[in-house]
């Protein structure tokens, strides 16, 4: 069955029927190619998605203050809750076990000018920890430090894009003075951030300085706290709960009132994101199986067609002495050979395309570094080859059973 002569006969048949060979081969190659590309795109989507959430530290709680919706302890409803500096001090004191870092945030939009350049930017008045929460990466100068906070220094650290807007690409902003609103500030550092443009179009200043500018008050908008990562998800939930109880007690908020204080827990978000990520994985797998199935059906179709087209030839061969076994063998070897050859071609084309895409689709389509692991690619190709074989075998078996006289009448 596998003699050299059989192979020569098969090769002659294939080369004499180029269109047929090409069409069935093309179906196989296309099937595996589409599978690999789609599967790779799915993985790329997952990559990009995960990157969005890796930009921020995952062990951070953000505390927002709102308006109460219930009266409590003699206070009326609709009271605006505001965080103050001593809240921060007391959290530090009471939650030593959980706490890793803490920073208040006061957000304002300010007119930023330097020489002739002027534009409106978001400023965040912070403690140094905020740099680490945001995973800022320093490129020039230094970050804000504790000393700046204590001395209420008029220093700013600016995002890369602010520096480019205001100072251009050549000038070094560090040491220069800019005006923020009507006050002069000294630039002490420039940072970059992988979280997108928005994260790089921001200026940081000490929160104490902002409070000084605003009539020396001690209000803060938000508080960000990070907990020790080893506490895990359960620890994060417990921390959130205790923190809420503590603040509700301190601010005289009804424990049933959900509007007074709001806490965003990244750990919780992360869990949601992981679930979303898993759903994405399911979709990717589903799409993969779908395309593979479509490929298999495509091959089956073309095989049935090929055998049908050859019915008369097979009848002639049988009349001349071809046994059913040799009829099946010829068709099967041919179909397996074609699926293997073109399957590999399709696989390599798909993998090659994915390798070369890299980040080109990241900006517009959220597909970053699409890839397929080699096991999945090879596994899918083998599946397609096996099913190509089965798809060839079934009609071949039927063709081998057909009586030569019926095949010969088939015009």
């Amino acid at each position: 069955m596998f003699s050299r002569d059989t192979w020569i006969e098969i090769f002659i048949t294939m080369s004499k029927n180029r269109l047929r060979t090409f069409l069935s081969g093309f179906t196989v190659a296309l099937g595996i190619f589409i599978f690999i590309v789609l599967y790779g795109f799915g993985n790329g989507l997952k990559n990009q998605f995960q990157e969005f959430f890796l930009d921020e530290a995952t062990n951070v709680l953000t505390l927002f203050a709102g308006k109460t919706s219930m009266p409590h302890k003699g206070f009326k409803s609709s009271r605006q809750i505001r965080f103050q500096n001593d809240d921060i001090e007391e959290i530090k004191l009471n939650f030593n076990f959980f706490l890793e870092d803490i920073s208040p945030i006061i957000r304002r939009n300010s007119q930023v000018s330097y020489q002739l350049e002027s534009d409106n930017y978001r400023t965040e008045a912070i403690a140094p920890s905020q740099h680490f929460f945001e995973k800022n990466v320093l490129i020039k100068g230094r970050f804000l430090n504790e000393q700046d906070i204590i001395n209420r220094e008029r220093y700013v650290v600016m995002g890369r894009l602010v520096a480019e807007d205001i100072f251009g690409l050549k000038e070094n902003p560090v040491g220069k003075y800019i005006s923020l609103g009507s006050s002069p500030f000294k630039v002490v550092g420039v940072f970059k951030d992988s979280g997108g443009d928005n994260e790089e179009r921001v200026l940081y200043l000490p929160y104490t300085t902002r409070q000084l500018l605003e009539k020396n008050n001690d209000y803060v908008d938000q508080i960000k706290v990070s907990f020790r990562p080893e506490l895990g998800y359960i620890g994060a939930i417990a921390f959130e709960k205790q923190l809420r109880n503590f603040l509700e007690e301190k601010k005289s908020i009804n424990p049933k009132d959900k509007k007074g204080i709001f806490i965003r827990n990244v750990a919780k978000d992360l869990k949601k994101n992981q679930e979303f990520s898993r759903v994405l994985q399911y979709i990717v797998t589903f799409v993969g199986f779908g395309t593979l199935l479509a490929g298999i059906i495509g091959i089956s179709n073309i095989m049935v067609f090929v055998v049908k087209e050859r019915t008369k030839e097979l009848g002639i061969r049988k009349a001349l002495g071809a046994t059913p076994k040799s009829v099946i063998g010829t068709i099967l070897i041919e179909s397996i050979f074609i699926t293997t050859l073109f399957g590999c071609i399709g696989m390599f084309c798909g993998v090659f395309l994915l390798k070369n895409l890299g980040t080109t689709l990241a900006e517009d389509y959220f597909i970053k570094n699409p890839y397929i692991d080699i096991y999945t690619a090879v596994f899918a190709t083998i599946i397609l080859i096996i099913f190509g074989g089965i798809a060839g075998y079934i009609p071949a078996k039927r063709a081998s059973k057909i009586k030569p006289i019926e095949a010969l009448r088939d015009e």
Partner: protein
Amino acid sequence: MIDIKNLHKSYKMGNSSLHVLKGIDFKADEGELVAIMGSSGSGKSTLLNILGMLDLADQGSYYLDNIEIKDLDETKAAKYRNQFLGFVFQSFNLINYKNALENVALPLYYRGISRKDRQKQALDYLEKVGLNQWSTHLPSELSGGQKQRVAIARALVSKPKVLLADEPTGALDSKTSTEVMSLIQQINNEGKTILVVTHEKDIAKMCKRVVVLKDGVIVEDKKINQKLIH
């Protein structure tokens, strides 16, 4: 060479069945050239198909060269066909993507003969039918008469005991028909047993014996004076 007794064959047509051969007794000796005649539906093609092991009889015995042909499975039938029988069809039945030489060599492939020997033997037989110049041509590049001569060469290449021809001239004009029959006579004169199914009296006259079928039985069986073509 051929000995059949009480051969019956019916075809199922939906619920009813069509009794095509109703007890055929027939003998042919080595070296005979027999014309099997009959109008369409007389059962002549069915008889040839059973003789050619392309179809199975329902009842009756069939000896070919003293070997009883029975209990044929597909594999066995394929081997017998390859060893004992050569076929010539009305519509030539050449494989259209193989050239003349490859078509002639095909039966030898299924006999397991090496490629080189196949080609050599096939070329010998192409020469015998006068087409060795055309060995590399595809069937589409040959005339009807040439195609049938290639088919005859293919039928002979495996040195069969019996040559079965089903309306070998049915698709040819009278001039080429005569040429093909001349070739068949020539092969017969070399000692080959040949059965020719035809409905043309002129063709039948070129054989040595005429068997006439009607409604599934043999109604006439006589030796005739062969009209020889030179």
